[in-house]
């Protein structure tokens, strides 16, 4: 078949890129080869627009065993225990088919983690939908949540944390990011690098069908009116098979059979085989006639580009074929030797004894295009003075926020996730971070995912920094020491200078915070082209962090514990309202700058909270984030049923600025009377700003002269939005 411009375009390749392919091959590619190039050279696999910028991120501290570049990042948590984790996006597939899109997103990220030898122990997700009144929103929400739950519940890994946000910017492009966290022995970690010649290359797992052909290209293509046509490419997940694959792989990993192993994710057999060969500077020869197929008459093109789920590629030590096969037989999974490693540095594909593709590995990896895309700085909009702010109604404002979808109780979602399977979940969803015990040990990890699209849109640099800090605060608030993060960078079209600028500046912000806090990036994912017809989404970096709890008795949460305790705010309140929930949702204003983060204060305040927890001075801790002090207090009350009595701010500050302001680096703590003086002494000695704002009390949530309602009532109000959702959802 002659390769026409139309065919090139349909493969998501630019004409210049096609010219480069011809140069590298020194001839025209055939259709199969073109398909392979298109899969490897697209944004999703090649990182061609992001690579030069991602390099700037800090990736090391004393805990890091493996940073970016492998299937997932690895950190050392002592006693030979390693934690392996990564986050990944499945945005476009989830918009097209929310259940399967989200489910296969979970399945995919799980494989990234267990392919490295870890048993997955926790799942998280960050999901962003359009505004409430968009008619697709509720159905998408319902489908995505069932899909995430459907997969995680069935495979038996607890889904323990996440975030759910609604914003008009996602009306035509939702975000579904899934994170998986696994536990491994640090001396038994598996990598994708191939080694040795003539080693058997083995295909295991499900059979290959026509699922998701061109999925990887689709994930990198902007939506347009015709995206409906791309629907048949959506893959279907089978968590049952993944469970079998997980157990079989972990069993095989116990002996020394595996040289290298790689999941088949985006671009399936193509990317997994190229990745293994490239990392090992070897060639691979595969016989596609041997690939287990689900449908009849599948072509080599289909086999190489299929994104059927629940498959892995393994390079085995010679002589281990029999024993390895036995394991996969036990779990009723396909096991097929489909090729061998070679010294040729080429990917050679055979079918029916004919060579059907012959491509230098480098052409697909190192020689893939890398772009220094043009970018421009985001124009910052100065804060305008807010004149009418004094006229607001405090009570109505708070109630409106409590009943808005963004700040509603997310129980409707989290009850659809099994959070307790595996028996190690100490803190579940609803906490600042989830805490998962390391099985049968006296230590735990804390995990959290966070994003703040409004902040990032107003100032990508400040937003990038803020989101890392918020994640750090969440991990600290449950009694852990933050160790490292993964990140999923969801952006619009990188060929647009403004968007590229958002990307570059976000990375600057993330980098600055990570460096200062010694909180490196060990893995991540970039999702570009989120948007439709030139309307791009707000820049939405999502940070997934992991912290370590050394002593299980120090795990703490944000639920008030008793009546009559003092409530302190740690960190200074200036009353920054621009880009806050109050300005956005109550005043309907969406401009100005997000609150700045002072990294020095961030670190000091965080460390003092760790110390307060360590000294058993505090009964509950909650970070102050979106919605300010008042929303944080309400959350502490609603989760515990215990009320508060809060005084008006004593200085001249405006009550809205004071209670709804979103200044950074703050925490609320609950302290028993007898621990107050010791606490204050410690805070003063360390020059930490603090103020006592009130006490816990029975039944009522009250703010002097402004608000007085039973906790019960605000709890009910906080649950109404989701309670009313069922009636309107497509089944």
């Amino acid at each position, binding site marked *: 078949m002659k390769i026409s411009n139309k065919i090139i375009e349909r493969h998501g390749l630019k004409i210049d890129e096609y010219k480069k392919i011809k140069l590298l091959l020194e001839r025209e590619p055939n259709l199969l080869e073109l398909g392979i190039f298109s899969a490897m050279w697209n944004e999703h696999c090649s990182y061609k627009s992001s690579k030069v910028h991602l390099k700037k991120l800090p990736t090391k501290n004393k805990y890091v065993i493996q940073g970016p570049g492998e299937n997932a990042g690895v950190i050392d948590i002592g006693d030979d225990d390693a934690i392996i984790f990564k986050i990944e996006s499945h945005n476009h597939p989830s918009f097209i088919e929310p259940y399967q899109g989200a489910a296969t997103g979970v399945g995919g990220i799980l494989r990234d983690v267990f392919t490295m030898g870890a048993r997955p122990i926790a799942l998280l997700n960050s999901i962003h939908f359009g505004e409430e009144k968009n008619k697709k929103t509720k159905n998408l929400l319902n489908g995505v949540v069932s899909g995430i739950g459907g997969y995680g519940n*069935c*495979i038996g890994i607890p889904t323990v944390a996440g975030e759910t946000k609604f914003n008009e910017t996602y009306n035509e492009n939702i975000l579904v990011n899934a994170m998986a966290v696994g536990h491994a022995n640090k001396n038994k970690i598996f990598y994708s690098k191939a080694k040795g010649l003539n080693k058997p290359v083995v295909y295991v797992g499900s059979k290959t069908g026509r699922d998701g052909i061109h999925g990887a290209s689709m994930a990198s293509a902007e939506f347009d009116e015709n995206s409906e046509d791309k629907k048949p490419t959506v893959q279907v997940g089978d968590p049952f098979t993944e469970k*079998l694959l997980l157990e079989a792989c972990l069993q095989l990993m116990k002996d020394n059979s595996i040289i290298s192993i790689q999941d088949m994710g985006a671009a399936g057999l193509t990317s997994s085989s190229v990745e293994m060969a490239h990392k090992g500077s070897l060639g691979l020869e595969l016989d596609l006639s041997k690939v287990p197929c689900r449908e009849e008459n599948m072509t080599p093109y289909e086999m190489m580009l299929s994104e059927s789920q629940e498959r892995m590629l393994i390079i085995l030590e010679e002589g281990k074929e029999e024993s390895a096969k036995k394991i996969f037989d036990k779990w009723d999974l396909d096991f097929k030797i489909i090729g061998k490693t070679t010294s040729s540095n080429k990917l050679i594909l055979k079918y029916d004894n004919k060579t059907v593709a012959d491509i230098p590995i480098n052409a697909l990896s190192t020689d893939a295009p890398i772009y220094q895309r043009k970018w421009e700085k985001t124009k910052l909009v100065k804060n305008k003075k807010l004149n009418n702010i004094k006229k607001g109604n405090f009570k109505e404002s708070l109630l409106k926020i409590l009943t808005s979808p963004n700040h509603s109780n997310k129980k409707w979602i989290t*009850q659809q996730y099994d959070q307790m399977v595996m028996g190690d979940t100490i803190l579940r969803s609803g906490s600042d971070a989830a805490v998962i015990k390391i099985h049968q040990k006296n230590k735990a990890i804390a995990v959290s995912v966070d994003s703040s699209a409004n902040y990032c849109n107003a100032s990508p640099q400040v937003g990038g920094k803020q989101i890392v800090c918020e994640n750090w605060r969440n991990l600290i608030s449950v009694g852990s020491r933050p160790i490292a993060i993964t990140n999923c960078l969801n952006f619009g079209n990188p060929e647009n200078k403004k968007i590229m600028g958002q990307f570059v500046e976000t990375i600057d912000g993330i980098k600055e915070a990570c460096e200062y806090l010694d909180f490196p990036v060990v893995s991540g994912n970039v999702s570009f082209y989120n948007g439709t017809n030139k309307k791009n989404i707000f820049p939405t970096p999502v940070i997934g962090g992991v912290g370590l709890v050394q002593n299980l008795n120090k795990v703490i949460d944000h639920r008030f514990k008793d009546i009559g305790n003092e409530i302190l705010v740690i960190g200074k309140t200036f009353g920054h309202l621009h880009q806050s929930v109050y300005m956005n949702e109550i005043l309907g204003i969406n401009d100005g700058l997000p609150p700045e983060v002072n990294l020095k204060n961030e670190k000091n305040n965080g460390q003092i909270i760790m110390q307060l927890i360590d000294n058993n001075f505090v009964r509950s801790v909650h970070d102050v984030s979106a919605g300010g002090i008042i929303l944080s207090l309400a959350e502490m009350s609603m989760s515990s049923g215990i009320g508060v009595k809060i005084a008006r701010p004593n200085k001249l500050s405006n009550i809205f600025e004071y209670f709804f302001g979103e200044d950074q680096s703050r925490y609320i703590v609950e302290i028993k009377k007898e621990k107050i003086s010791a606490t204050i002494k410690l805070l003063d000695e360390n020059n930490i700003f603090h103020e006592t704002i009130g006490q816990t009390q029975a039944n009522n949530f009250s703010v002097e002269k402004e608000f007085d309602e039973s906790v019960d009532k605000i709890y009910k109000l906080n649950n109404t939005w989701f309670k009313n959702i069922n009636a309107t959802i497509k089944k």
Partner: protein
Amino acid sequence: MKSSVIVFPGSNCDRDIAVALEKLQFKNKMVWHKDSELPKSDLIVIPGGFSYGDYLRSGAIAAKSKILNEVIKAANKGCLILGVCNGFQILIETGLIKGALLRNKNLKFINKDVYLKVNNTNQFCKNYKNGQIIKLNIAHNEGNYFTDKNHLMEIKENNLIAFQYCDEKGLVNDETNPNGSLNNIAGILNSKKNILGMMPHPERMIDKIISNEDGLNIFSSILN
């Protein structure tokens, strides 16, 4: 005391159950579903999970496995059998416990802590006080127990309900019923009372650091 935990492809609470049993010093063995022999056991546990993906009907396919024939034989000889969640669904599909487990009334998977009222007139609940309110965790799609009128009569007359969903104070009504289960049934015995099927997971409540210890008494009741 010797126990066996049956493991099917897709079981995922097998480890959790084993941890609970071992905590109480049961000598426990894991038994793979393809095995045709069952180790000598005083207690057989069929754990939760998604055996065979819960495809067709939850529990239906596991109920056809080889090892289930052995379980049925043991059951008929009076061996104690505990089925939790998917294990309960499997017991239902084998007919060892009568009735059916339908989709939850809200058609959603439900994971939450629930209060249960205990009826202690059986070997599995001896160590609870009668009428005691305990808190366990449920996590299922199909826990909506249903049976016919005659069987319901038998259940009531013979005290076969082991657990009922209720609230903190022990109130049993529609509001405290998470899944639509008939008479708020959360756990039920066969007529000989040597088999207990229950939707809530006792093995998730065996450690104060993680949750509470309300599940321990089921295992300890069996011990003596």
